[in-house]
């Protein structure tokens, strides 16, 4: 399976994790998008270094070929999925730890 399709599936799974699986609903919060914008800025810098040198090389047949500061567009989708799932699990775990204490 090519990277483009996998990356799109990753984004869909991340959205599903936040909206339906863990129900953290981060994608509806302004703060999430502000944090994501900050992460995205630094990602463009570090990903630019990794793909510009390049530390990482891609099979041209498995990506669209659309690049932003050397990084394939698929890397942005991969990172969005990773960051969203990370924050969703983080927030979900935080709520789980706090809840039992409140019930006492």
């Amino acid at each position, binding site marked *: 399976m090519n*990277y483009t399709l996998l990356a799109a599936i990753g984004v869909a799974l991340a959205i599903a994790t936040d909206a339906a699986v863990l129900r953290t609903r981060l994608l509806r919060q302004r703060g999430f998008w502000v944090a994501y914008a900050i992460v995205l800025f630094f990602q463009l810098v570090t990903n630019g270094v990794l793909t510009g040198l390049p530390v990482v090389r891609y099979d041209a047949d498995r990506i669209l070929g659309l690049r932003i500061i050397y990084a394939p567009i698929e890397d942005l989708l991969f990172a969005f999925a990773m960051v969203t799932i990370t924050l969703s699990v983080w927030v979900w775990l935080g709520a789980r730890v706090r809840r039992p204490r409140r019930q006492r």
Partner: protein
Amino acid sequence: MHATYLLLLAACVVGTLPLEFVLHTRVYAQWLRLIGTLVPVVLVFGAWDLLAIHQHTWGYNAKYLVGVTLPGRLPLEELLFFLVIPTCSILAFEAVRARQPEWFRE
């Protein structure tokens, strides 16, 4: 330089570390919650990385790696990537939340 990728990750750790102390993000302080978050992320996205390496979707330039390779031809730096970048993302998230808690309501 063989340490290039490793130094890039180190810069991410060092660059975000002040957030923990200046904005009191309490990310490293809640280390158990951090580990609980990182484990599934490493498993899912590490598996994706291994698949991509196996299918030759991407590959790593040995010139910029320290040379420690894990099973599945995964460079050590890639495993660290899945620990460092999610941790930095959580720090950014908690930093925004520390400054603007009202932005985290639906």
